[in-house]
């Protein structure tokens, strides 16, 4: 095994990230978002003989943040933190083995588009430095 090239290519993985806004965030939207994450994992599992990856999201509103993580679909989505009801910004990323990034993007768009009031604004956020 050489030590040149990208480790992502070496392992045979892909990743994709999306960001945007969600209007009228509340408990129902939280459940819809969790279901969308599980749906993305399901789509990946169907394509690649199991889900070996990580789906994570951060939602922010009024200086509050909520993170969501999905690693093993049978364990569900773990949630850390709370945000108030109302509008919030979100970022979500998926990385997994044995899929390509275009497939991930399509799966994410398909599953997230089912959430009413969710708008994808940008694919990239770039370098984030502390203030």
């Amino acid at each position, binding site marked *: 095994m050489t030590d040149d090239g990208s480790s992502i290519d*070496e392992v045979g993985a892909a*990743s994709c*990230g999306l960001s945007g806004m969600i209007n009228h965030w509340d408990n129902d939207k939280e459940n819809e978002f969790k279901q969308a994450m599980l749906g993305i994992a399901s789509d990946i599992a169907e394509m690649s003989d199991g889900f070996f990856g*990580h789906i994570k999201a951060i939602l922010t509103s009024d200086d509050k943040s909520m993170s969501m993580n999905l690693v093993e679909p049978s364990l569900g989505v773990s949630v850390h*933190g709370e945000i108030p009801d109302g509008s919030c910004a979100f970022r979500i990323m998926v*990385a997994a083995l044995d899929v390509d990034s275009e497939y991930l993007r399509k799966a994410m768009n398909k599953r997230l588009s089912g959430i009413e009031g969710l708008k994808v604004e940008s694919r*990239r956020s770039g370098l*984030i*430095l502390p203030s």
Partner: protein
Amino acid sequence: MFVVLIGGFLGSGKTTMLLELAKAANEAGLRVAVIVNEVGEVGIDGTRINAEGYEAVELAEGCICCSLAGTLQNTLITISSDFKPDLIILEPTGLALPHRVQQIIRTSMIRPEKVMTIGVVDAHRFEDLLNKRRNFMERQLMNADLIALNKCDLIGEAVIHRAVDELSQICPGREVFPVSALTGEGMGTIIERLI
């Protein structure tokens, strides 16, 4: 200044472990800086770590062991000179090869007193991942100073023993610590190595 590098596959619990270590170091009076790397074009963990009150720099849109190697070196130099931390905790992506990051730290000119690499392994998915990508897992754990077999709260004793035995063969001479970064169980021994 110490640098702790937390390596391991996607979803192995690196960020949860990072937060536990940062909390312990902070309580011990150390000035802590965090560098996290995301592979998926958008940053996620930096916001969470900042929300917990730590100084975090998030490098997104690439992997610090390959495409963002130069960016990492510059970030290490900037943080060291501007923030003057006692401890930098560095979390590469779950698809990175930590031994490459070690090399980047060594050549970054920040001259840390010590670099410690923790290889984090998801105990719950260990056997499946080993079957799926054994070679890559072995390469991810290369040069780790210790192995944290994480998420042991999710599995039984027999599975833990099997995983510890297997990891001892993959990483001969390295200690394997069964832990749960989420519950804190077993983390004391790792924290003692750090502080």
